[in-house]
């Protein structure tokens, strides 16, 4: 091979590198820019702050990654968070709470509200998934229905009032261990690892990619399409239940209108992370980066004293810009 060819190969590799890690480069540039503009950004407290801010929609975005890879969408996760959250909170209230939801309930071990939230989340997801798999209605519609229904149940359950004053063992889930590492961040990292294993190392994960890649070919090749679809939405719901626990732990109370619009934030994180709406393409790692981009953006703009209303504008532009870059990457291959 000639020298000219050699250098060309290298250049192409750079290009491919830029393509592959495009969004990571964006994240690094954002971090660099922010640390120059505001040195406080790189303090360990602030880094953990950013990570903590990413946890709630970040955890839901992990489930969303499975959903979107399979060419679906899950609009219900925000509402599921609220429903699972108010139920968990009602089971985890301190006896000292005023206007206690269950006035005569003794203080339960914290595992009870945790399991309740996870069960409600998984059940809601199971219902959406079953609807999608069995009636073949579009995921958009099935989860739009679940979004409205779950929000309705959250309101019915609480009669519209927030549930607060949780037991210390519950709020500890939103606190820090060794006074440094936030528990939500630990939970988030564990879920990243578990989701990554599920997506890459199990039959379920391969089936998710296959369904997104070509649902007919998946069926013909012996993939159990309907069971996989049901599992996908159940997992997404389960993670929304987990996010509800983190939310309750951090805030110390849950109101039935909580997490409105979070489904869109987690969809945004997933898209920024390179998961394609046309299916078959996406990674957990990418979604993590996508969630960080959003969290860094929000944190950075606040540190820079940017007006909260303008932050919204910036966020919208970033979401669209990131996806344009991502689409170009896919289109160039043709």
């Amino acid at each position, binding site marked *: 091979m000639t020298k000219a060819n050699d250098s060309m190969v290298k250049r192409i590799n750079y290009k491919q590198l830029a393509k592959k890690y495009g969004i990571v480069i964006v994240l690094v540039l954002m971090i660099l820019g922010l640390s120059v503009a505001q040195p406080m950004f790189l303090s360990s407290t602030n880094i953990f702050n950013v990570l903590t801010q990413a946890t709630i929609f970040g955890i839901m975005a992990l489930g969303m990654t499975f959903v979107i890879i399979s060419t679906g969408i899950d609009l219900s996760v925000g509402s599921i968070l609220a429903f699972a959250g108010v139920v968990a909170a009602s089971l985890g209230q301190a006896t000292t709470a005023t206007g206690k939801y269950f006035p005569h309930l003794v203080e339960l071990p914290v595992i009870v509200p945790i399991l309740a939230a996870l069960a409600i989340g998984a059940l809601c997801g199971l219902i959406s998934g079953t609807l999608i798999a069995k009636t073949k209605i579009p995921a958009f519609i099935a989860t739009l229905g679940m979004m409205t229904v779950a929000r309705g149940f959250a309101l019915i359950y609480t009669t519209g009032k927030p549930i607060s004053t949780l037991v210390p063992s519950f709020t500890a889930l939103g606190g820090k261990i060794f006074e440094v590492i936030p528990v939500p961040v630990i939970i988030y990292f564990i879920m990243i690892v578990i989701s990554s294993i599920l997506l890459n190392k199990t*039959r379920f994960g391969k089936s998710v*990619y296959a369904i997104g*890649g*070509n649902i007919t070919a998946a069926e013909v090749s012996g993939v159990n399409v309907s069971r996989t679809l049901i599992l996908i939405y159940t997992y997404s719901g389960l993670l929304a239940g987990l996010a509800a626990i983190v939310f309750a732990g951090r805030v110390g109370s849950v109101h039935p209108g909580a997490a409105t619009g979070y489904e869109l934030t987690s969809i945004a994180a997933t898209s920024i992370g390179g998961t394609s709406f046309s299916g078959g393409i996406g990674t957990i790692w990418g979604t993590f980066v996508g969630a960080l981009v959003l969290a860094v953006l929000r944190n950075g703009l606040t540190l820079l004293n940017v007006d909260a209303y303008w932050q919204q504008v910036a966020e919208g532009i970033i979401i669209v810009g990131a996806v344009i870059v991502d689409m170009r990457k896919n289109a160039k*291959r043709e």
Partner: protein
Amino acid sequence: MADEKYLLEMKNIVKSFPGVQALKGVQLQVLPGEIHALMGENGAGKSTLMKCIAGIYHPNDGEIIFEGKKLGTYTTAEALKMGISMIHQELSPVLYRPIMENIWLGREPLNKFNLVDHKKMYELSKTVLKEIDLDVDPRTLMASLTVAKIQMIEIAKAVSYNSKLIIMDEPTSALTEREINQLFTIMRKLKAQGKSLIFISHKLDEIYEIADRITVYRDGEYIGSESSKELKVDRLISMMVGRNITEMFPKVPCKIGEVKFEVKNLSHKRFFKNVSFNVRRGEIFGIAGLVGAGRSEIIETIFGIRQKEGGEIFIDGKKVDIKNPRDAIAHGMAWLTEDRRRSGIFPMLSVQLNMAIANIPRFLNKIGLINEGALNSECDQYVEKVQVKTPSLEQKIQNLSGGNQQKVLVARWLMTNPDILFLDEPTRGIDVGTKVEIHRLITRLAGEGKSIVMISSELPEVMGMSDRIMVMHQGKVTGIVENSKSLTQEELMAYATNTVDEYLATRGKK
């Protein structure tokens, strides 16, 4: 200059696509006021030629002379304006809009405010529909019409363009007997008005009923044109298939064992009735027939993709119940589907996953995680075994050539170690070299004692590879014949067109 008596004259038309020369310098002459049939096997180039006339394709070489004028390059819209309409095999109406909006799509009559004049459109549509004796309200939604009616609307559209030449690409393939008769009535009426029609069909009886002249193509070449009154059936068939079987088919005789797989009286509501056949160990069982004969649908029904109406399936003499492809795979069956893009590959996924997808359970450890090392090494083995040309297992399958994609799919199914393989058009759209490789592989599998069912629309392939051949015509089995040196393509074609009695009668006379 051009011969004035023809409405359309095509000379020396050449059309190439990357890797294939679809038309190798063919000709066609159409007289005014005639129904002209085009015949030839799949891949003969008929549809390509028609798309050249309609302005969808532009020939690489050759002349198109229409009404005595030599045409340059033109678009479909220009073709329509000149009076050339084409009714495609796959109709694509705007389903949830009314008939009239479909007819006047893109040239809606406007009122003085430049808004669509629905009243005028309605009146105009009524006139056009009346012209072809179609009694239907122009405000009816397309979606509520039968395929036959939708086709009539397409014809009405052609009439509304005042077309002088109407091309129909297999218009009868989805119609019932009665609907075909209606179509023929309209065709005759249009002919009486001096319009010319080009008609493509695989059904010989139809051709003889409606066509004035017949032109035959084969492998992208022009074979001949004759009046349908003078052209005898057996001669027509030999014009269509008259190809010698070369050494393309490295079939070696294998030891044939006991019956492995059997289907009894399998029926489907729409596609086929009472299909029975069996396949033995080491046997290659070919299924021949024209497009629409119901061959692929049989496999889809066996695998549980389509609901069967009746019938039983036996493996090793035991009755089995197959509800979905998973059950079939569990019974040692494999299915290489007909349409690689639609139901075969996962385009944006890796070669590795494309190959492994039907085999994941074998590579799971105790806690359900995939043993990536074992999986990769087996994939590597199969890349070697079927000789897939790919830079790595991580390569996206969409970046491979069609032949290599097909090999990956073959490997997918070989990995499941099946006993019974269903191969639906295993070499369609694949270059000659890869074709021979796949044929060699099929023979080798038969040699290993596997039972193989192979559907193919290419008669030379069926005859070159099979031990026995089942021929179908419109959902019915017209014959199961032993393959032998004395079997001719003409005979198979006669079975496929359900004219075998006639064929044997003329042969008897000789």
